[in-house]
């Protein structure tokens, strides 16, 4: 029997007076604190757990095992690019010289770190076809914010204040409209046609003097390459708007097509997707932005520059007076950037080109295999990009089995479920992204699981509705969670 029952909280292990004594310095006599006015002192110690070191290690080790993770399972979460996170990148980023460097250390004591960041900026420019890069945004959503804020700063610098709208295809990630609003814009959604391309006529009709820009991904969230990108870029540019590239799907085209060559003025990249840095249970990410020449003055600071003598230095507000400013206290998620740097150096030119190629190969293979066992693609006439959409609308109607039921049953087959119910315009959908790092055997195992689940759906749909059965908990009551809020453990 484990010393710890399921769901035991660290607080429940606490006993008054128990300590992990090796972890903290010795207590100080009270007079050493006499400079702090008594009125500002805490009356009672905070109710943190009082546990031993072994209890802590065992508790969190046990907790960690209650997760699916790339290191354990196939994790085909569409739009999230759950590829292998190289262990070497982690070790390199955790080198003592990097971990111990204070963010405000003088440039004289930062040349090693700055060299890595300068080179990463250059690599990202080359692989995206952009003219300037800032590494500071701390996640994709913050990169989006930086991008749209730069679009706004650009128009304002030209006294072009009538531009109040951002155009967004209806299939876009929710962060796109949320970001546009954070930057003070109104959102106008543009419809997508039955093949997954933007409705170009509707887009042209929506463009006008009020258009600040367009936000889109390509390949789109429909899992297909937007073929009319030239026409879209032309329509938006002719209206005086700028084009924003959401790099969520950059893995599909890395090394094959460059957003800069497609006419995009500003992009963000998700290094936790395309450059294989870990997702860490929901972060930290890194969302660097790249820009065309005309947006370079507005990049968020700081940026790493190199002087003629080869010394690296920070470029800040003094160098970029029109910058949209600082998005974090220091320079973003430096440790994530170091991991991405490691990955970029290991891959090199050939390796980066292969990322786009093999992620696309894997997705198209998986799509064909799933189609062959009776799954319904949302866009059967199209090539998959690095991901693709299946719809279970037919199963929902005839068998009463939803995409969510199938997703939960996949967990019982030791497969992480794909993204469900996104994009919103395809009913009962899966968005599936296998990535380039999975073997053919892993893809085949997923197909076998799906084949078995579809048979179960026909023979015994109730089985799916009760899934999962193999996990630490059964299906959870989300309604109760929202109605009877329990966000902190309230017992002492």
């Amino acid at each position: 029997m484990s010393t710890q029952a399921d769901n035991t909280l660290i607080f429940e292990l606490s006993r008054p007076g128990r300590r992990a004594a090796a972890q903290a310095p010795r207590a100080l006599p009270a007079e050493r604190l006499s400079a702090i006015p008594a009125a500002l002192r805490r009356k009672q110690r905070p109710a943190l757990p009082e546990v031993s070191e072994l209890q802590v290690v065992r508790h969190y080790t046990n907790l960690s095992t209650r997760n699916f993770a790339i290191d354990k399972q196939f994790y085909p979460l569409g739009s999230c690019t759950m590829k292998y996170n190289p262990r070497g990148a982690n070790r390199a980023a955790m080198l003592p010289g990097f971990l111990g460097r204070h963010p405000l250390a003088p440039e004289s004591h930062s040349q090693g770190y700055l060299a890595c960041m300068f080179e990463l900026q250059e690599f990202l420019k080359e692989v995206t076809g952009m003219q300037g890069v800032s590494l500071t945004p701390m996640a994709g959503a913050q990169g989006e914010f930086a991008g749209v804020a730069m679009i706004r700063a650009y128009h304002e610098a030209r006294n072009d204040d009538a531009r109040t709208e951002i155009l967004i295809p209806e299939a876009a990630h929710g962060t796109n409209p949320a970001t546009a609003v954070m930057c003070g814009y109104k959102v106008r959604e543009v419809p997508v046609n039955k093949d997954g391309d933007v409705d170009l006529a509707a887009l042209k009709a929506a463009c006008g003097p009020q258009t600040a820009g367009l936000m889109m991904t390509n390949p789109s969230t429909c899992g297909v390459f937007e073929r009319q990108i030239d026409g879209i870029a032309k329509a938006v540019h002719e209206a005086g708007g700028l084009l924003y590239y959401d790099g969520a799907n950059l893995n599909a085209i890395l090394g094959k097509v460059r957003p800069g060559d497609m006419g995009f003025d500003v992009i963000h990249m998700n290094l936790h997707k395309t450059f294989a840095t870990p997702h860490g249970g929901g972060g930290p990410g890194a969302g660097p932005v790249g820009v065309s020449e005309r947006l370079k003055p507005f990049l968020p600071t700081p940026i790493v520059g190199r002087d003629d003598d080869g010394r690296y230095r920070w470029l800040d507000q003094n160098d970029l007076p029109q910058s949209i400013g600082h998005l974090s206290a220091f320079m973003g998620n430096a440790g994530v950037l170091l991991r991405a740097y490691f990955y970029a150096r290991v891959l090199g030119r050939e390796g980066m080109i292969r990322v786009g190629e093999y992620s696309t190969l894997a997705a198209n293979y998986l799509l064909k295999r799933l189609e062959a066992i009776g799954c319904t693609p949302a866009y059967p006439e199209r090539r998959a990009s690095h991901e693709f959409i299946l719809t279970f609308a037919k199963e929902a109607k005839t068998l009463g089995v939803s995409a969510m039921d199938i997703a939960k049953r996949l967990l019982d087959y030791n497969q992480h479920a794909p993204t469900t119910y996104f994009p919103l315009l395809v009913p009962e959908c899966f968005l599936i992204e296998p990535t380039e790092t999975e073997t053919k055997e892993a893809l085949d195992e997923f197909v076998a699981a799906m084949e078995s689940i579809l048979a179960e759906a026909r023979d015994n749909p109730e089985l799916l509705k009760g899934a999962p059965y193999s996990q630490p908990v059964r299906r959870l009551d989300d309604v109760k969670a929202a109605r009877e809020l329990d966000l902190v453990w309230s017992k002492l």
Partner: protein
Amino acid sequence: MPFIPHTSDDVQAMLAAIGADSIEDLFDEIPAHLKAGALAGLPEGLSEMEVTALMASRARQDAGVLCFLGAGAYEHHIPAAVWEIATRGEYYTAYTPYQAEASQGTLQTIYEFQTLMARLTGMDASNASVYDGASGLAEAVLMALRANRKSKSGRVLMPEAVNPRYRQTVTAICENQNVELVSVPFDAAAGTTAVTALSGYAGEDFAALVIAQPNFFGGLEDVDALTDWAHAQGMLVIALVNPTALALLTPPGEWGEKGADIVVGEAQPLGIPLSSGGPYCGFMCCKQQHIRQMPGRIIGRTVDLEGKPGFTLTLQAREQHIRRSKATSNICTNQGLAMTAATIYLSLLGPEGLEAVAAHSHANTQTLVARLGAIDGVSVAFTDATFHEAVLRLPKPASEVLPQLAERGIIGGYDLGLDFPSLADCVLVCATETRTADDIDLYATVLAEVLA
């Protein structure tokens, strides 16, 4: 092929299943003129050994200095267990817990983090963390504007004694949403924000007052008086706090008569390395009545269909993937891994351990200030009590002295002249529990030499 497992037989079999002749065929929907060229600016790939050696030599270049710099990032001892566990693959390579049943480890860890932060700050609720303290303060300002329904001005009082980098970040994130930050000067003698400095704003419409405890100068604000003044004016109180200091100081939930309304801060001191400024971990807590205005992920405890307790994402109706343009923020991730580290750190240290870290950091800084302040021409700039940072006035501009210290291997503090013209001869110093008596002696000796 690094990280790509396919053999040539695999590739052939996969292409055959697809019905394509080559991988290139899979890109046939992309207009030919858009295909990338040779990518000549990228180097050849290297092996793990080669890249590791390169990065190790770069890391060594930056190592080996003695640091007395804080200013928003603090070096504390990090127990070995913290990152050994946080970088287990099960934590490290999982994603946002969309499939709750297969993510109970991450979800329970977040629930414990929320509980720890609520207890440390004396608040009702916490979110699952935001990017960092500075962007967290920006989110808190936006949250206060939503939560204070009586206020229509879009204005927030922002003392100058708040970390200038945080103020810059708040400006960058909020300025496109018609938010006005109104500065409050600090008392030039005390180094804190006097209630009398606020009296000119009495009767005006502000959504909130930001109170930093300790403030950027390390100074301890009269939080009770400031909080009560703001509440009497119909403002909300946003507390910006250092989590280590909370082991000793009154938690924001107990400030004044009613306590702060929103609390934010940087969890970096809780087991997260300096690491050039990130990844860090912003925390955000609030009173129960404001929970639906909170941005970011929030985890709730519920039951499964057999009645067994479990954890899940909740209040998602606030978030961008549901509400799109009407969401509380565009934020989707938290700082999962850093949050996991902070959770393990707080569990290891416990109440007495965290208090000991705070006490040593305070006491070491007191010692440092006494030693440096005894040097000819050096004096303590402000009169109010401080936590683990303090401002010293030098007989020369800090921009001259600090590079000379750096040449001798000492990062001597933060040049306040960068942000405050009146403090060009002032340096902000910090000595946490990791600085020894010898370290402090060395700094005093070298500073005396540099100033001689």
